[in-house]
């Protein structure tokens, strides 16, 4: 085979502000999602605060944080359904997130969409479609357009290991390789596709092994170590930016919640969950920062308090929003509003 492992310096220094930024987003994401989880568990069915379920990234935030922190405004992120962090990093506010979940009048998707079916395109995110791996194909186009115009923007795109068994993922990876598109494919391997464990989805250990079949380099990283994710994705991004084509980065992690907030996930072996709980991405990063004297408990308390306040403000603000106007339901299918929908 002509392909190889994506090489990068596993000890490459990361600027201190970047480390702090990543830690901040880890905490921010976790706190928002804990809040969503809490609300979903406690709201009444008759008068819910949030509509529908939360599909959370609790325990696997480092992937989205590490990845999204490697790129800039001009770049794109065609994200998965567990990429709340990428939204925040690309400028979506906690208020927008809660409004999106509330589906109320000021929601960025006007109440037409809910929860993770989101991704404001003006921030170079791609609205998520339920059929899972589809954003990998869309990433081909954002990347191609950059290449077409001779720009050096890159596109990140992500999906779960479950989605990676879909046909569209195969087509997308091969196509990216053929046209040497500036795409970095990120696989969030969290061990489960709803209730189906990874061992029943594929018999190989690593989705990353498939990259060789497209002529791309790949690597597997600890998805709960945000610095490892950052370094690997950054290497992929740098390569892509130089015109060297796509690559695959598989991030091993674990889904610490149910598939959605409705799912108690009793099918997940306790031992697995406990093992991964000991390797929480936030604790891991905090330990790293503290033991390297880049952080202390005092600042930590302060940051957490600040984040809590931000979120409280966002939730309170979101609470004031009202249901969408019914007329919204029939608007926006076409640019020309005179085309009938009935």
């Amino acid at each position, binding site marked *: 085979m002509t392909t190889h492992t994506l090489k990068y310096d596993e000890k490459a220094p990361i600027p201190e502000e970047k480390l702090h930024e990543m830690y901040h987003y880890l905490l921010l994401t976790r706190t928002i999602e804990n809040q969503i989880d809490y609300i979903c568990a406690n709201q009444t069915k008759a008068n819910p605060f949030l509509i529908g379920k939360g599909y959370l990234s609790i325990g696997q935030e480092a992937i989205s944080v590490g990845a999204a922190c490697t790129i800039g405004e001009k770049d794109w992120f065609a994200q998965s359904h567990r990429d709340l962090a990428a939204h925040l990093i690309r400028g979506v506010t906690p208020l927008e997130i809660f409004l999106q979940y509330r589906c109320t009048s000021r929601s960025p998707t006007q109440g037409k969409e809910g929860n993770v079916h989101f991704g404001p395109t003006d921030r170079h995110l791609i609205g998520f479609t339920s059929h899972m791996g589809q954003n990998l194909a869309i990433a081909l186009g954002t990347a191609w357009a950059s290449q077409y115009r001779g720009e050096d923007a890159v596109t990140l795109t992500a999906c779960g290991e479950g989605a990676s*068994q879909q046909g569209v993922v195969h087509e997308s990876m091969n196509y990216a390789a053929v046209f040497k598109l500036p795409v970095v494919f990120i696989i969030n391997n969290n061990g489960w*596709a709803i209730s189906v464990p990874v061992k029943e989805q594929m018999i190989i250990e690593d989705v990353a092994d498939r990259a060789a079949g497209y002529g791309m380099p790949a690597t597997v990283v600890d998805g709960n170590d945000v610095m490892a994710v950052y370094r690997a994705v950054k290497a992929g991004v740098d390569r892509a930016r130089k015109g060297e084509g796509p690559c695959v980065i598989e991030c091993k992690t674990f889904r610490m919640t149910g598939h959605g907030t409705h799912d108690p996930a009793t099918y997940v072996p306790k031992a697995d969950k406990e093992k991964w709980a000991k390797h929480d991405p936030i604790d891991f990063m905090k330990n790293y920062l503290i033991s390297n004297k880049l952080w202390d408990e005092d600042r930590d308390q302060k940051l957490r308090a600040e984040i809590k306040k931000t979120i409280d403000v966002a939730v309170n603000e979101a609470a004031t929003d009202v249901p969408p106007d019914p007329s919204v339901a029939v608007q926006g299918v076409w640019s020309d509003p005179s085309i009938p929908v009935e």
Partner: protein
Amino acid sequence: MVKMNYMEAVRDGMRQAMIKDERAYIYGEDVGFYGGVFGVTKGLFEEFGPKRVRNTPLSECAILGEAMGAALNGLRPIPEIQFADFITVAMAQLVDCIGTYRYRFGYNLPITIRMPSGGGMSIGPFHSKSLEAWFIHSPGFKIVMPSTPSDAKGLFLAAFEDPDPVLFMEHKRLYNTISEDVQEGYYTLPLGKAAVRREGNAATIVTYGGMVGLAMDAADILAKEDIAVEVIDLRTLWPLDEETVLNSIKKTNRVLMLHEAVKIGGFGGELVARVCEKAFGYLAAPPLRMGAKLTAPPVHPVLEKVFLPQVEGVVAKIKELLQY
């Protein structure tokens, strides 16, 4: 008779098929020990074991390809497409390979494809759709959309026995919301036979699946004004029980086609056109339609209410028919 809700009835249908016929097996995403994302297959894994109740990877093309090959090689597969909306990733296997095989090559494909359909649950664009119109326009399928627990079970078993591919489009909003006494053991109800759910002579509502309840509610409201609406539940969309529909229209002379699917390009248009072709002279008013708007199904209930037909709308349409 045992009281069952709609979900339990579908499950019991599957269970009876599995007990009776060794060739039956159930498979799809999450149908194993988890019992499916709605719980429809709960307990079947324990009862029939991992060979006959099997999880699959997230690979709908492979799932339907398997169904076809297994049917050709003597089995009677019962695959599940987790939400009907997701069939869009496997349309070639469904419409091109499965749907045309008998016509092209002369071999039967006894496959029952379960596809939970329909909306009204605030779960938005890709977990709410009713796509039956696509499949009526494609050769080779029988299409069942039951509205009651008894029908769900009896029609499931008829679908299972049928030598042709059947799309069994149960309505997920009905799973836990309706129950009734259901016959125990193995029984079938004929495919292609509609049910007159309520007799009346003022106007006819032709409907099926998730909209039968709404039609009955509208009929209740209208009954208070002494307007007697006949409600026909098609049960099987194809083959269509045209006779029952036409007979009713010959009596009431007024008809509303009601479905949850998008109205534009929906099955209602086919029904209207068939009625015009075969009973135009009996029509005292234009045959009308109600269905969803031509948008993606929106999430917020306020919006979804606009998207989907509502009882007031049905009542208004019937009055429109009467006042014509």
